[in-house]
Every structure is written in structure tokens, then in C-alpha cells.
């Protein structure tokens, strides 16, 4: 079945032509013919790219206007940016805990049993 929404977004953006289309739509809405102009491909090929972008929710096309301009759905990008930033913040929090561990570490390793015999901790650190 269809991949989950975010995967559709990322795989839609894995193609350089589609990334280029998205970059141009960031400037403003455009029709299919306008979008196809700079590429050495058919309008049909560009339409196929647009369908992938549309399925991923990255762009929408107006139903009313004759030329059906393509519009970039910027909120999807905001959401991805949010997720990536949240992931980064979690990494930063983890590495701040590592800073604390490093601060308390002795300069030489304490005698330690061979790695194969490493014991699990008694319970969670509180």
C-alpha cells in the first residue's frame, strides 16, 4: 500500500527535478507549461512529477482557474523542519547529559571486567 505521508514527502523530494520545481514554486505559483519550459522534457513528464508532489501533499492545483496554477504547500515544509529540529534538540539534550558524564569521569579508566562480562545495571539511574 501507499507509504506513510512523511515518506511520500521525502521520496518526492529525492528527485532533483522535483526539488527544482519546488524551489521555483517557492517564488510563486506557476502553470505547468511555465514549469516545463526550462527542462528538456515533455509537459507530460513534468505533469507526472507534479502528480508525485501533489500526492505527497507538497503542492496543490487550483480547480477553478483555466490554467490551474500549481501552488506550494509551505506548511508541510514547516512540519518537517519542526521534526528535524526536535530530533536535533533531543540529540543536544543527550549530548548535554554526556557532557555531565565526561565532567565526572576520572582521567584513567577504572578497572573494568572484560567487555563480554559486562553486567547490566541494577536498575534505572535515578
Amino acid at each position, binding site marked *: 500500500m501507499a507509504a506513510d*505521508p512523511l*515518506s511520500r514527502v521525502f521520496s518526492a523530494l529525492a528527485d532533483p527535478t522535483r526539488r527544482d520545481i519546488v524551489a521555483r514554486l517557492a517564488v510563486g505559483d506557476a502553470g505547468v507549461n511555465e514549469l516545463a519550459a526550462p527542462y528538456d522534457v515533455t509537459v507530460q513528464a513534468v505533469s507526472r512529477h507534479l502528480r508525485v508532489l501533489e500526492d505527497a501533499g507538497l503542492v496543490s492545483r487550483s480547480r477553478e482557474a483555466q490554467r490551474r496554477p500549481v501552488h506550494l504547500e509551505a506548511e508541510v515544509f514547516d512540519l518537517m523542519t519542526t521534526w528535524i529540529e*526536535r*530530533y536535533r534538540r533531543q540529540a*543536544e539534550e543527550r549530548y548535554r*547529559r554526556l557532557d555531565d*558524564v565526561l565532567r565526572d569521569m576520572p582521567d584513567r579508566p577504572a578497572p573494568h571486567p572484560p*567487555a*563480554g562480562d559486562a553486567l547490566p545495571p541494577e536498575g*534505572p539511574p535515578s
Partner: protein
Amino acid sequence: MTSTTHREARITADPDVPLIRIEREFDFPRDKVFRAHTDPDLFVQWVGPRDLTMMIDHYDCRTGGSYRYIHSRDGEEYGFHGSFHEVRPDELIVQTFTFEGFPDGVALEKLVLEDLGNGRTRLTATSLCDSFADRDGMLASGMDVGVHEGYAKLDELLAEG
């Protein structure tokens, strides 16, 4: 976009391959940073998210070794396991990583430590996932936040469009 604080973690989500890269600098020498990754007693102190309980099943950080640990919260358990493919003191750890909730998925993780001089170290951690779907799931979940919360929001957004 880079952060303004001189050594806050920086992240890159590669658009061409399903990869996440995190870079971070430490005011501590390389051997300590390395040891904090290989010694299970130290590792357990920092790797788990604060709101989860971290329990190590086994952790044999040497070339050819393996590991398994469990995060738990409110009776729910999330297991992770993998193998250490290359462990080179103070420099490099190459390992696999599987979230047991998706046992067929596996990421190849590489940890590189660089000596910046003056007792400082740059850490670069990359996760190369199986597919964009896996990578994005990892990003969206933030590892310790429900995937569904994130996806539900996107579903809503897409439904509106």
C-alpha cells in the same frame, strides 16, 4: 541553517540518501568521549531519553560484539539491538541499529571522533537507514516521541489540502 551556539548539535537530513548526520563538539578529550560510548556503566547514564528508563541487556562494544538495551515507560518496552562491526579505540565505532518494533529495519551507524586539540573533540554520528521511509520514521518519531502523534498531524494537514 547552523545554530549560533558554538558547539550545539548540528543535524543534516540528506535529501539524496536516507541518512541523518549529527555533529557535536565536546570540551573533553577524545579518549573520554570514546569511553563514554564503550563502557556500559557510562553509556547507560546519558544515552536514554530522560523520561524513559534505560536497561542494558548486554553491551559488548568491541569489533564483532553486540548489544541490546531496553527503554521502558509506563510498562511499555522498546528494545533496540545491533552488532559492533568495527571498534577502533578513540576514533571510530561502526555498528548496526534495529528498533525491535520494526525488526526488519536496520540502520548502519558510524561514530567518528576527531581530536580538535586543547582537549577538545568533534563527534560525528551518522545513521544510514534502509529506506527513506525508515529514515523519516526515525526523524518523525524523534526516537522517543510517539510516531503517531507526528503522523496524525501530517494526516490532518494533508486532509485539509
